[in-house]
């Protein structure tokens, strides 16, 4: 059994966050690349905390849908930002867990003394996703580029068949199961007996909660307008249970219960978080919202169908709680990423079934989550961490929050934050 994090480690705290408003793919940010949006999110954070010209010890971020030209996406974004160019950066990718994993990476470096300040986050554009050529054409292009003689270059293309010329659009399909995330989740939904009504209620709560947070000004210091957009555009403050109930199923066939209303939309956006060693943050009169207490990643055996693709959170959370001597009741707020409403509901059911406990629904996604905000894959972690850290700070020292984000590949990333 690993030891509980020792007192010899330094405290890594969340100072603040910044993100673009999130918008539906193909919409207001259709013209923006991942690098554009990540740069905009970083520069908004830089402006908020007066970091222009300053060196941050490391910037860590990533994207799920990534162009080959973006091999150094985060460093390129730093170089385009107002940060001191001596600021190093790293790309990290763990599907939808990217943003939270980036925060954990940064917090670990700060706790170990390898960094004092860091920016962590992520970005995704499903509008500007890479289009890939088919395998036959790709091989021919590679062969041609290595050919020495012009004739060999021509010959390389003789193996290309007309069907090879069609582009391959990106798809969120698990390579080993061939199922899209929605199709996989539809199996989970049926297996755990999650009803349409329960899913629609969760979706409604997400919209209502996010709308209330926007109305109260909660996001005023967490979001910077981008390209004429000042507020999350997927949010439907006026939606009703009746309106959600009228939507047709999109996954799980005719009798399916998953709709466009209780599944996340393809979304564009970027989110970043500023972290610092606690005493450094206090010396610089930065807000000290919450410290990163601990984190746990887990994976499920979904390929065989024994377990569920998106329920690894129910494996990570008990490990995380046990190591820290905590129960679900010890948390003021619990954030479970709403990939689909039924993912959250099945995770809650799995936590009950495996004896971890019952999540008090009044503590769940209190300021809304991905169903209402949208889900630009790698940006979701940064959105949740900044939101939760601010909520905990408002609640007061000692209040704790739990985050669980499911990811492709049957993984989940979880973490505990605590207001200090």
């Amino acid at each position, binding site marked *: 059994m690993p030891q509980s994090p020792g007192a010899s480690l330094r405290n890594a705290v969340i100072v603040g966050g910044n993100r673009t408003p999130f918008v539906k793919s193909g919409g*207001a940010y*259709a*013209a*923006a*690349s991942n*690098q*554009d949006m990540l*740069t*905009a999110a970083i*520069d908004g954070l830089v402006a908020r905390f007066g970091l222009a010209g300053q060196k941050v010890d490391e910037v860590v971020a990533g994207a799920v849908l990534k162009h080959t030209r973006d091999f150094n996406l985060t460093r390129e974004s730093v*170089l*385009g*930002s*107002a*940060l001191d*160019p001596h600021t190093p950066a790293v790309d990290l990718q763990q599907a939808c867990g990217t943003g939270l994993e980036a925060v954990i990476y940064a917090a670990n470096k700060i706790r170990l003394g390898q960094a004092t300040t860091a920016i962590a986050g992520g970005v995704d554009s499903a509008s500007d996703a890479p289009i890939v050529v088919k395998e036959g054409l790709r091989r021919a292009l590679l062969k041609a580029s290595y050919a020495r003689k012009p004739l060999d270059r021509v010959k390389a293309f003789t193996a290309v068949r007309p069907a090879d010329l069609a582009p391959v659009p990106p798809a969120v399909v698990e390579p080993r199961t061939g199922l899209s995330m929605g199709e996989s989740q539809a199996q989970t939904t049926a297996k755990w007996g999650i009803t349409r009504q329960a899913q629609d209620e969760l979706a409604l709560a997400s919209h209502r909660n996010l709308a209330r947070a926007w109305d109260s000004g909660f996001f005023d210091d967490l979001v*910077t*307008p*981008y*390209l*004429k957009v000042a507020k999350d555009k997927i949010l439907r403050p006026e939606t009703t249970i009746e309106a959600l109930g009228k939507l047709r199923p999109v996954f799980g066939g005719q009798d399916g219960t998953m709709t466009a209303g209780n599944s996340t939309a393809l979304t564009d956006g970027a989110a970043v978080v500023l972290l610092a060693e606690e005493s450094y943050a206090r010396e610089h009169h930065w807000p000290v919202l919450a410290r990163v207490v601990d984190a746990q990643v887990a994976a499920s055996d979904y390929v065989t169908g024994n377990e569920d693709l998106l329920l690894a959170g129910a494996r990570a959370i008990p490990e995380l709680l046990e190591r820290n001597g905590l129960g679900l009741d010890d948390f003021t707020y619990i954030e479970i990423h709403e990939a689909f409403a039924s993912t959250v509901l099945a995770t809650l059911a799995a936590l009950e079934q495996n004896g971890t406990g019952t999540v008090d629904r009044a503590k769940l996604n209190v300021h809304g989550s991905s169903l209402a905000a949208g889900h630009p894959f790698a940006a979701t972690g940064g959105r949740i961490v900044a939101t939760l850290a601010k909520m905990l700070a408002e609640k007061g020292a000692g209040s704790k929050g739990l985050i669980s984000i499911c990811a492709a590949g049957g993984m989940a990333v979880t973490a505990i934050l605590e207001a200090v």
Partner: protein
Amino acid sequence: MADLVFPELPSIGPLLARGVAGSIGAGRGARPVPGRAAIVASHRQDIARLSAYARVCGFTLRDHVPPTWLHVLTFPLQAALMAERDFPYALAGLVHASNSMMLHRPVSVGEELALVVRAGNARPHRKGALFDLLGEVRGRGGETVWTGTSSYLALGGKVAGASAPAEAEPAASEVALPAISQQWRLPADLGRQYAAVSGDVNPIHLNALTARVFGFKRPIIHGMWTHARVIAALEPRLPDAYTVDVEFKRPILLPGKAGFATDGSSFAVTNRDGKPYLTGSITPA
């Protein structure tokens, strides 16, 4: 003299054609530059167009727009003034000699802008006449957010009422810059790319055939592309408000390569021999 008031930015192609056609056989040279203004009272910026401009020039697509973008917005009004029948200098054969612009404060892509351009400051030059097109961009509150001066040289042109000898060219300010830090590759179709995003469809930029008519063996890139590319290279370090002055020294033939050198305030875009295509400097406001 009535101002030219447009409901939206006029299309440049027909203006250029009219300006070029109108210049043929017109008795040019000794008339004064008309004092009218060309105005668009309210312009909503187009994100798709800004994005295309940003891609071609190397900018990050931000909420705040580059100052050279604001120049691009005023350029159709420049063309409109020069296409007027009584404009004394022929549009064909004008050389963009230098440019100066001041960004008074960051301008967001969401802002509605008023655009105004006037012509003036005609003065003798040893190769003809120089005149300026003076642009101004105002924000919603009417405050000036950007001002620009484009100086054009009319080869062989005369200045009304001027009898004094052409002023000597000011001594080139020699700034020793560090070695080039960037090399830019300008593809053969860059002129067409920039024409598409800026609206400046002057034929010298488009293809070899049309460029040859005007005495260039290959198409040349727009000076304002090179200017924009410089601002894109400096973008992350620029203050909120600044003046940027550039001089266009010689054209860049397409396709081509250019080096970029800067010490942070002065900059130069140079050819393989280190001779400048463009020089300039940035001054914080």
